[in-house]
């Protein structure tokens, strides 16, 4: 700066003129750049927000579709199974029953009782599919064990689980959400992966609750999951996402380093679920 302090020379005018114009141009350029850059950032944020809203809408649609499907299944179960059974029981117990001989009356009553027992069993099954009694009475660990015993019993694959830090049960509604997520994941593995084993582990690390599912079939990676989640297909995955959102949880899909099996990690905050 002191070097620039030359005495009054003819050069002073041009230095002063071009210097001032240059500095002003730089200042105005900087301000214009900042305004335009910020507008660009705002536009980008707007696009991100719209994408997020689209995804939320898709999740909501998926959850509504799931509810509707569940209702349709319930309606079909009640209409197609319970309805005919009760109608048959009613036939056995019609007005002519009093005019029948005693043996026929007893036979009709016995048949009606059998049908009513079947109906009770059917309704119990429907109720259990809505809320597994093992889950309600004994918790997530027992419910997952129960589910895996049934799967292993079929002989097609070996399913096992180990809960390391599950001395205290979570809230029942949270357990149900986690159970449904696991059920959906297991369903997907059974349908698409051709796996020979499924193993679930649970543990707590600090304030994080982890559920990890391993299988040796064809699986998903995180990018596959995100791609399916953004596309109109993959209803089950969207349901998993929307259910976990209720618990403020995260899910990660990855292929193990050894490339031999796939791993799905569900991560929850302990504070959120206890």
């Amino acid at each position, binding site marked *: 700066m002191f070097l620039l302090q030359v005495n*009054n020379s003819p050069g002073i005018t041009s*230095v002063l003129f071009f*210097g001032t114009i240059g500095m002003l141009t730089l200042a105005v350029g*900087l301000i214009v750049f*900042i305004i335009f850059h910020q507008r660009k950032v705002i536009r980008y944020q707007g696009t991100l927000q719209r994408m997020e809203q689209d995804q939320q809408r898709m999740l909501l649609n998926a959850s509504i579709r799931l509810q509707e499907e569940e209702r349709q299944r319930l309606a079909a179960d009640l209409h197609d199974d319970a309805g005919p059974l009760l109608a048959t029981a009613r036939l056995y117990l019609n007005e002519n029953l009093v005019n029948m001989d005693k043996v026929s009356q007893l036979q009709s009553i016995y048949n009606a009782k059998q049908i009513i027992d079947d109906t009770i069993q059917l309704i119990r099954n429907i109720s259990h599919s809505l809320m597994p009694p093992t889950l309600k009475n004994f918790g997530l660990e027992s419910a997952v064990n129960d589910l895996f015993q049934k799967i292993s019993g079929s002989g097609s694959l070996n399913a096992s689980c180990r809960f390391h830090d599950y001395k205290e049960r979570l809230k029942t509604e949270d357990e149900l959400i986690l159970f449904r997520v696991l059920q959906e994941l297991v369903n997907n593995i059974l349908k698409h992966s051709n796996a020979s084993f499924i193993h679930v582990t649970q543990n707590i690390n600090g304030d994080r609750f982890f559920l990890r599912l391993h299988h040796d079939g064809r699986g998903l990676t995180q990018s596959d999951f995100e791609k399916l989640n953004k596309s109109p297909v993959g209803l089950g995955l969207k349901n998993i996402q929307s259910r976990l959102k209720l618990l403020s949880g995260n899910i990660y899909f990855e292929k193990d380093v050894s490339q031999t099996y796939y791993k799905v990690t569900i991560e929850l905050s302990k504070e959120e679920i206890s």
Partner: protein
Amino acid sequence: MQVLFIYVLVSLSCDIILKTHKSKEFPNLTYTVLSFFTILEYTFFSLFLFLIIRNKYLKRIIAFISILFLAFSLVYYFLNIGNPKKFDSPSASIESILIIGFCILFLFDQLNTPEIVIIYESHRFWVITGFLIYMAGGLFLFIYADDFTKEQKNYYWTINSFINLVKDIFIGVAIIMKKNNINQINM
């Protein structure tokens, strides 16, 4: 906003003194007024910036540099008080460079603050922009000001008047924006 208001008052008072005083009666007054105006202008600006900036690291930098600059300006003023100087070129030039630097720091800090919706809707942006244009436009003028002849000074000082006007307009916009924001909040 009070800082800005006081700054505007100080600026007006200095202009009035410089226009009205008799240089023969008080030969050192121009130099004194200009030197103190430089110090006060820098102090008000850095205080304003210190109050609005959120980044603690930047705050510390501003405070540290300000102490150094104020010490330098005072020492320079007292060392040159007897000289027939009319303008404190080194202080004013360093002030310009520092304020330009601070303005750039502030603008980039604002860009990295996600809650700022649109930068020019903030009254601070207008104050900073006003000062940035004023200091950028005045930097070379301040560097050479001490060496100007009376004719040159009269000729070139229009640049200063123009950028000063731009700065005052921007500060005016900022004050009006701030007032409107307060009214909207009260409604």
